[in-house]
C-alpha cells in the first residue's frame, strides 16, 4: 500500500465528528443530512411562518398586536441572544467538563496531526447539526415578529444565515474554551475530579454574571458612558437581526418609525455587521493562534503533585472513639473517600447554597411580614430540604467502578456493611444541611424556639429520608461513570419523583385509610392524638412515610447490590 499524503487532516477529523453525530444513519449519512437540511430550510422559510401564522390567527389576530410585536422585537432579540449565548457556551462546557476525554487527542497527536487541525476539524464536523438546530428552532421564536414586519424571503434567509453564523461563532469559542479546560484538567485524576465538580456548579456560574448584569447595568452604563449592553457581542448579533427584519420589512415602515428603532438600537446595521464580523475573525484568529498552546501536555499523569494524607481530623478521631469496632473504621474510610472527591464537595456546596436560598424563597411565597404558622411553613421547607438530600446523596460517587463492586462483593456481607457505612455518613451530613437553613429561616422570620425545634426536627427527618431514597435507588441502579451518564440522571429523577410523591400523597393515603377503616377523618384523629395541629401531624406522617419507605428502598437496593451476578 502506498503512503498517501493527507493534506487535509482537519477534513478527516471533521468527517469523523460527522460520522459520530450521524452514527444512527450509517450508510445513508450524506443523503440523510442533505434531506434533513433541505427540509429544515423549507420549514424555516415556509412551513414555520405558515404554522405560526395559523396558530396566531386562532389565538389572536396579528393586526391588533402588530405594533406590540414590532416594539417588543429589538428588546426580545437581545434577551434571546443573551440566553442563546449562555446556553451555547455553558452546555458544551458542562458536557466537556463532566466527561474529560483527552485520550482521543493523544491518538490524533500521535498521528502527526497538528493541534490546529483538531480544533478546526472538531468544529467543522459539528456545523451540520448546529445549522439544523437553528433552522428548526429559530423560526418558532422569530416567526411572529417576521410576520408582524412581513419580512421578505431574502430578509428571512439573511436572518437565518446571520443566526447560523453567530451560533457557529459561539460554538467555535466554546470549542476553544473546552479544549483549554480539558487539556489543563484532563492531565490528572485530581483535575478530572475538579472538572466534574465545576460541571455541577456550571448552572450557578452562569446565573451569577447574568444576574450581575441585570442588577448593575445602570452603574456600568454610567461608567462606560454608553448603554452597557452595547459592548457585548450578543447585542450586536441581536441588533443585526433586528435591523435585517426592519430593512426587509413588507409593511413600509415610515422614516419616523425607523428613527425610533435607531434610538433604541443605537448602532446601525453596518456598525453591528462590522462589529460581529470583527468579533468572528478575532475569535477564529485566537483559536488558530492559541491551538498549539492549548493542546500541549506539560506534565504527565503521574508527575503531578502527589497528595499525601495527613493526621486524621478531630471529627474522624471522634468517630473512631465512638465506634472503635471494624464498622467504625469502615465509616471513617467511607467518610474520607466521600469528602476527598471534589465533586461531592461541590454537591454539598450546591445543596448548602440552595438551602440558604430556600428561606428567601419561603418568604417570597408568604410575603414579607405575613403571619407564619408551622402548618404552612413545614411542608414547603420539608420538600425543599428533601430535594437537597437527594442532590447530595444520589447518583454519583457511590462506587468508582464495577471492579470496586466486585471487591466489596468478594467480602462476606460486604455490600450491606458498605451501604450501612454510607448511610451513617449521610445521616451525619444531613445535620448541617438541615440545621443551617432552618436557623436562617428562624432568624429571618422571627420564629419562636419551639417552632425552630419543630422545623429543624422535621427538616432533618426529611433530609435523612431523602438520603435513604437517594442511597437506595443508587444501590439499585449504581452509576460507575459521571454526572453525564444517563444512569445518574435516571437515579436523580426517580429519587426526586418518589420523594415528591411520598411527600404529597402520604397524608392523603392515610386519610383515605382512616376514613375507610375507622370512619374518622385523619385531621380529627391527629388532634385527638394530641398533635399541635392537624397540619403538623400530617407533616410528621410525611416524614415517617419517607423514612420507612426510604429504609425499604435501601434494604431492597442493598440486597440487589450484594446479589451475585447472573
Amino acid at each position: 500500500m502506498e503512503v498517501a499524503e493527507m493534506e487535509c487532516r482537519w477534513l478527516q477529523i471533521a468527517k469523523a465528528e460527522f460520522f459520530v453525530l450521524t452514527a444512527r444513519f450509517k450508510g445513508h449519512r450524506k443523503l440523510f443530512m442533505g434531506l434533513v437540511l433541505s427540509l429544515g430550510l423549507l420549514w424555516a422559510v415556509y412551513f414555520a411562518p405558515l404554522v405560526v401564522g395559523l396558530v396566531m390567527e386562532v389565538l389572536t389576530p396579528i393586526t391588533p398586536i402588530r405594533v406590540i410585536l414590532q416594539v417588543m422585537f429589538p428588546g426580545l432579540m437581545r434577551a434571546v441572544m443573551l440566553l442563546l449565548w449562555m446556553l451555547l457556551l455553558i452546555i458544551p462546557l458542562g458536557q466537556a467538563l463532566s466527561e474529560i476525554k483527552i485520550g482521543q487527542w493523544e491518538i490524533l497527536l500521535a498521528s502527526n496531526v497538528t493541534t490546529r487541525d483538531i480544533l478546526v476539524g472538531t468544529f467543522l464536523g459539528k456545523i451540520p447539526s448546529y445549522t439544523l438546530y437553528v433552522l428548526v428552532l429559530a423560526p418558532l421564536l422569530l416567526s411572529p415578529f417576521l410576520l408582524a414586519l412581513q419580512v421578505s424571503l431574502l430578509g428571512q434567509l439573511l436572518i437565518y444565515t446571520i443566526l447560523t453564523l453567530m451560533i457557529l461563532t459561539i460554538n467555535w469559542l466554546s470549542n476553544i474554551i473546552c479544549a483549554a479546560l480539558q487539556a489543563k484538567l484532563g492531565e490528572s485524576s485530581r483535575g478530572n475530579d475538579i472538572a466534574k465538580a465545576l460541571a455541577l456548579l456550571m448552572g450557578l456560574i452562569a446565573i451569577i454574571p447574568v444576574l450581575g448584569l441585570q442588577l448593575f447595568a445602570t452603574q456600568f452604563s454610567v461608567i462606560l458612558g454608553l448603554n452597557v449592553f452595547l459592548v457585548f457581542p450578543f447585542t450586536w448579533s441581536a441588533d443585526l437581526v433586528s435591523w435585517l427584519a426592519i430593512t426587509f420589512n413588507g409593511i413600509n415602515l415610515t422614516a419616523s418609525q425607523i428613527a425610533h428603532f435607531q434610538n433604541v438600537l443605537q448602532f446601525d446595521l453596518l456598525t453591528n455587521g462590522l462589529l460581529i464580523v470583527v468579533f468572528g475573525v478575532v475569535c477564529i484568529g485566537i483559536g488558530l493562534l492559541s491551538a498549539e498552546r492549548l493542546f500541549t501536555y506539560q506534565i504527565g499523569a503521574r508527575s503531578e503533585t502527589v497528595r499525601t494524607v495527613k493526621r486524621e481530623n478531630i471529627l474522624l478521631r471522634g468517630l473512631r472513639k465512638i465506634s472503635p469496632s471494624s464498622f467504625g473504621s469502615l465509616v471513617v474510610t467511607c467518610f474520607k473517600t466521600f469528602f476527598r472527591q471534589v465533586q461531592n464537595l461541590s454537591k454539598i456546596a450546591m445543596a448548602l447554597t440552595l438551602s440558604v436560598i430556600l428561606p428567601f424563597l419561603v418568604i417570597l411565597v408568604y410575603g414579607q411580614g405575613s403571619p407564619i404558622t408551622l402548618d404552612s411553613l413545614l411542608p414547603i421547607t420539608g420538600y425543599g430540604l428533601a430535594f437537597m438530600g437527594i442532590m447530595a446523596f444520589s447518583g454519583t460517587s457511590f462506587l468508582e467502578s464495577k471492579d470496586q463492586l466486585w471487591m466489596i462483593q468478594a467480602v462476606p456481607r460486604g455490600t450491606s456493611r458498605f451501604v450501612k457505612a454510607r448511610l451513617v455518613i449521610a445521616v451525619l451530613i444531613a445535620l448541617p444541611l438541615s440545621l443551617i437553613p432552618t436557623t436562617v429561616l428562624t432568624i429571618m422570620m422571627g420564629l419562636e424556639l419551639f417552632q425552630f425545634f419543630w422545623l429543624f426536627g422535621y427538616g432533618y427527618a426529611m433530609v435523612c429520608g431523602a438520603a435513604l431514597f437517594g442511597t437506595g435507588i443508587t444501590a439499585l441502579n449504581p452509576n460507575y461513570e459521571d454526572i453525564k451518564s444517563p444512569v445518574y440522571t435516571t437515579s436523580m429523577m426517580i429519587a426526586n419523583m418518589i420523594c415528591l410523591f411520598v411527600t404529597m400523597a402520604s397524608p392523603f393515603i392515610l386519610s383515605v385509610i382512616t376514613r375507610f377503616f375507622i370512619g374518622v377523618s385523619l385531621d380529627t384523629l391527629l388532634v385527638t392524638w394530641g398533635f399541635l395541629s392537624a397540619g403538623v401531624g400530617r407533616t410528621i406522617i410525611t416524614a415517617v412515610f419517607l423514612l420507612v419507605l426510604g429504609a425499604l428502598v435501601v434494604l431492597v437496593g442493598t440486597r440487589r447490590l450484594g446479589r451475585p451476578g447472573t
Partner: protein
Amino acid sequence: MVNNSICIKTEGLTKIFGSVQAIRELDLEVKSGSRFGFLGPNGAGKTTTVRILSGLLKQTSGTGTVCGYDVSTQRNSIKAVTGLLPETPGLYSKLSAVEFLEFIGALNGRNGDSLHQRIDRLLAILGLEGRQEDLLESYSSGMKQKVLMASTLLHDPQLVFLDEPTSRLDPAASALVKDLILLLAEENETSFFICTHITSFAEDVCDVIGIINEGQLVIVDSPHQIIESTKTRNLEEAYLKIVGGKVDRQTLLTWR
C-alpha cells in the same frame, strides 16, 4: 465443613450469557495447598470461572464446592475463606494505600493494631513503605497491583484467586509475587488459583496447569507432563500447540 484434600471441585459447571456460552460443562478438581494455573486465550472463560468460584456470579448449571462450601448456597462462607485479586484494579483513588487496606480489613471485620501491623508489614514487603500515605490516584498501575495483592492476602485466606496477577508488574515485582506465592503455599499451605496469560510465570509457579479454550477445559496436568505429552520445549509452545494461534513468519507480514 472443610474438605482437607480438595479445595475446588466442579461438576458440569456451565455459564451462558445470552447467546454466548462462556463455560461449558467444566469438571475441575484442585487439591488443597496446590498452585493451580488456569491458562487460556482472551475470552476463554477464565475470569467467569473465577467469579463463579469466588461467589460473585451465579452459574447457569452444574455444581461446585470451594473449600468444602457450595458455590450456589454458601457464598458468604466461601468469601470468608478466600481472597480475590480481580483482573482490573478497582481501587479508591482518594484513599492512601494504608487507608484502602484498612477499608478492606474493616469490610472483613478486622481493625485495630493487629490489622495496622499486618498492613505495614505487607506494604514493606511489597516495597511500598515510602509511598503508603500517598493517595492511590498517583500510583502507577504496577503499584496499584501490589496494593491489590496486599488486600487479597490481608485476611489470611485459605484459597487465593489471582486473575492476571503479574500483567502490570515489572520483572522485579513479578519475581516478588512469584516468591510470595511459593512461600505462602509452602509455609501456610495456602492454595492458589491463578489465571494468567504469561506461560513462563505459570511454568515457574504452578504445580498443576489447566488450559481452557472456548469455555472447555482441554487439559489438566503438571507443567512438565503437559510439555512432555505435547512433545514441545516449553509451556508456551505446548500452550500454542493445544490452543492454536501460532502464525508463521510468512503470514505475519502479509498485511503490508
